């Protein structure tokens, strides 16, 4: 039976409004207006995106969250490009969600997921920069009493061309803030970009090398107390009872708080005291009826999804795949599996909250400031004008910090101690066992050939969990979860790159009680393994080269093909590999970007050790804002994806997750890191994401190479369960 999540209706309404990614489109750029809006230090806002200080410092407002992906820097580049300001004088700041709500959502969508940080805000942040530039030029022209058309701006300096007079942005900022903004501004043609497209250094590096960077876990407020937390180990379970008296006299303990129905927190002077006391607190849990669920019971349920009598949702269909397979000259069939995965951000979940009778403030790392704000309102019971959320840099997000469970908990604990700031920090164990896991799926792949070895049909039947069913049921389409079909759709931003005469891709939905979530790359992680490993299987079944086999199916998908060709060429496909080295390929599309990967591996110890020597990754994100950061996202995504392939996998026993820490859920180290070569092919005309898409090509490229090395086809993850490790 599908597990039905309990939703708080109020949180649902606010949360879904805050999540709506489309709302920012058509956003009005706030006007400087006759009244000058001032930043906290008194400097004038030219508009919501740009503040200019008298010393020519340009403060660019960034609504999206920085979690390592570099979009803080990339978004600043987009604004600065249009502003024509001096990049060396640029700094950034986060507006708060409370400020945004008070200003009719001046900064649009805060949510930072789905690799949307740059691609979904590029249009309006560039307009923000261009508008501010026009206002600065106009202010200078008015001061000189010359036509605007005679003035140009570059590098934070406005010049009156005929006379050669010059002024700086800092000098005209006060006047510019009073100028009526132009009704419409043109942004630059990409061919005129000077700063966008350059691999400039990140703006947030220095403090990350000295220990100064403030993460949520580092928050300090006067009189602050610390909270440690334990949630019912079985998802959906409850607290039955706890014996508070047993820890009442332990050092530093201030209070024991029941948080909602499923959670207990201990508040103490230090977190170490809170954690030590919580470990000693006897708690009796009610497992809520899920105490018998195991990985085996989930697997059995997924297997039932292949029974033809079970209903499915169709994601992509052309021709009649079932009939074509039934009448085929040759049929190939295989089952693939992908497990639950935990995000395991380096910084465990945490939030600090201060609640007083008429105000509630939260400090935290979040991928969605507005959702955190909505959670603060809901948990505090206070209205929007009495709440705010102060975003801090995230110690990793990967999709986990788009959820607001930890924010809600911090507020509920703080509410029990009005006037005292409370910092809630989860242990690694709590973090590992109370995530929103990459969903579990199993997939039956079937391909059919005619007598001439042409692929005539492809049938892909995915049985498994839907993310939207639990997290955003309002986004289901007549019950179907469209996100399930990432990379497999007929068209759009996650389109399949192959044309097959008869195609059927369907989803038999099964929703176990383990909460699913958006894990870097989301469903492309498994969809790419299923499709791209099976493409190799199909090619090999008819004795064809995997690259040539794909090319024949890709003539109508030139962008998919271009990235595949790029990695094939760079890896040396078709030329002899070094002795003992084998190559594998994969291509896919996700988050509106086209990606491909090619790996070189060697295998030792009877197939039980894999050395990944090299991976070439190609990306066509349409426009490449900062190539140096894209290179880092590509290499970093390979580490995350390969960690999941080799070491990952969260298993369920007695209704709970078994893995508790990095000793049982390991992550790649530097010794296991392949050399990564990133090829960026920005073909222009569209905006694609870069934080996530490439993650999905590393695993199938390695698995395809492994088959060539060993003759053994691996169809399930993680490799550690098959006694295969990094060499």
């Amino acid at each position: 039976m599908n597990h039905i999540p309990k939703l708080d209706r109020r949180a649902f309404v606010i949360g879904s409004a805050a999540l709506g990614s489309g709302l920012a489109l058509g956003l009005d750029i706030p006007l400087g207006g006759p009244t000058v809006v001032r930043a906290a230090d008194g400097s004038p806002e030219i508009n919501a995106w740009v503040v200019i200080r008298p010393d020519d410092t340009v403060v660019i407002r960034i609504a999206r969250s920085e979690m390592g992906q570099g979009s803080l820097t990339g978004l600043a580049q987009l604004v600065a490009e249009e502003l024509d300001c001096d990049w060396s004088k640029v700094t950034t700041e986060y507006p708060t969600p409370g400020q945004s709500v008070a200003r009719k959502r001046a900064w649009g969508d805060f949510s930072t997921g789905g690799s949307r940080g740059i691609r979904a805000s590029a249009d309006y942040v560039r307009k923000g920069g261009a508008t501010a530039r026009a206002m600065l030029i106009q202010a200078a022209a008015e001061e000189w009493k010359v036509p605007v058309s005679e003035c140009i701006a570059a590098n934070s300096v406005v010049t009156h061309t005929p006379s050669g007079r010059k002024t700086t942005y800092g000098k005209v900022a006060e006047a510019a803030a009073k100028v009526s903004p132009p009704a419409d501004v043109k942004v630059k043609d990409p061919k005129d970009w000077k700063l966008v497209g350059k691999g400039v250094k990140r703006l947030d590096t220095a403090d990350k090398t000295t220990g100064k960077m403030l993460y949520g876990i580092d928050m300090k407020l006067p009189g602050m107390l610390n909270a440690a937390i334990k949630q019912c180990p079985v998802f959906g379970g409850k607290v039955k009872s706890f014996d508070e008296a047993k820890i009442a006299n332990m050092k530093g303990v201030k209070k024991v708080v029941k948080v909602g129905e499923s959670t207990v927190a201990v508040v103490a002077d230090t977190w170490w005291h809170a954690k030590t006391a919580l470990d000693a607190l006897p708690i009796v849990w009610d497992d809520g009826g899920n105490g018998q669920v195991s990985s085996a019971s989930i697997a059995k349920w997924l297997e039932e999804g292949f029974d033809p009598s079970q209903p499915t949702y169709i994601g992509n269909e052309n021709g009649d795949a079932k009939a074509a397979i039934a009448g085929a000259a040759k049929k190939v069939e295989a089952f693939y599996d992908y497990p639950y995965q935990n995000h395991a951000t380096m910084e465990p979940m945490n939030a600090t909250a201060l609640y007083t009778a008429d105000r509630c403030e939260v400090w935290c790392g979040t991928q969605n400031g507005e959702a955190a704000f909505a959670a603060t309102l809901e948990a505090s019971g206070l209205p929007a004008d009495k709440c705010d959320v102060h975003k801090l840099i995230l110690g990793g997000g990967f999709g986990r910090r788009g959820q607001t469970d930890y924010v809600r908990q911090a507020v509920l604990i703080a509410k029990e101690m009005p006037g005292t700031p409370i910092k809630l920090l989860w242990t690694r164990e709590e973090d590992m066992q109370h995530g929103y896991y990459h969903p579990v799926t199993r997939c039956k792949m079937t391909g059919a050939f005619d007598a001439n070895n042409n692929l005539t049909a492809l049938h892909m039947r995915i049985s498994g969990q839907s993310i939207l069913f639990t997290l955003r049921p309002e986004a289901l389409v007549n019950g179907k979860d469209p996100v399930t079909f990432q990379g497999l759709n007929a068209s759009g931003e996650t389109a399949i790159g192959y044309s097959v005469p008869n195609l059927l891709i369907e989803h038999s939905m099964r929703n176990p009680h383990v909460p699913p979530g958006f894990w870097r790359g989301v469903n492309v992680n498994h969809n790419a393994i299923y499709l791209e490993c099976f493409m190799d299987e199909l090619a090999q079944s008819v004795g064809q080269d995997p690259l040539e086999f794909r090319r024949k199916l890709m003539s109508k998908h030139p962008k998919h093909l271009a990235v595949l060709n790029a990695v094939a060429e760079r890896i040396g496909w078709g030329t002899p590999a070094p002795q003992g080295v084998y190559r594998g390929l994969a291509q896919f599309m996700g988050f509106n970007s086209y990606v491909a990967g090619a790996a070189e591996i060697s295998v030792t110890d009877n197939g039980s050790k894999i050395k990944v020597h090299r991976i070439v990754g190609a990306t066509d994100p349409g426009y490449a804002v900062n190539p140096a950061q894209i290179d880092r996202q590509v290499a970093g995504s390979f580490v995350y994806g390969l960690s999941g392939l080799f070491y990952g996998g969260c298993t369920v026993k007695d209704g709970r997750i078994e893995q508790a820490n990095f000793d049982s859920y390991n992550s790649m180290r530097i010794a296991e890191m392949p050399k990564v070569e990133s090829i960026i092919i920005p073909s222009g005309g569209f905006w694609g994401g870069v934080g996530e898409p490439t993650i999905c090509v590393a695993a199938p490229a390695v698995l395809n190479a492994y088959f060539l090395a060993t003759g053994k086809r691996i169809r399930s993850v993680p490799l550690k369960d098959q006694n295969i490790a990094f060499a």
Partner: protein
Amino acid sequence: MANLTINGKSFDVDVEPDTPLLWAIRENAGLTGTKYGCGIAQCGACTVHVGGVAMRSCSVMVSEVAGKKITTIEGLADNGNLHKVQQAWIANDVPQCGYCQSGMIMAVAALLKDKPKPTDDDINEAITNICRCGTFQQVREAIHAAANA
């Protein structure tokens, strides 16, 4: 109560002797550059130097380090001059989220003290910190850059 010498300064910290050094550093000395990642010496985010040796402070008790010279990321710079590892980190734009980097930098600083010109194999053996963002390629480049600085 224990006395700790951290970055050349003396701290009287009111903790039980079995308190992990990490939490005495973060909560009692108030130095939050040293990070909590796992608590079981797996990830290395909490790496500090004790008597010049890199140690995972989550798994060292305060009672074990009394009287020893402890250096955290905040104490790595010398009179405001960044350590060559920190400089290489900035020059090579290494950090992504940055959370693991304090521990990574401390581990690398200790490695370079032992082996001023480490080979890739030396790096593979000595640097076992987890970075979930996957900065390893830049970490390796920056280690070699620092060694050659």
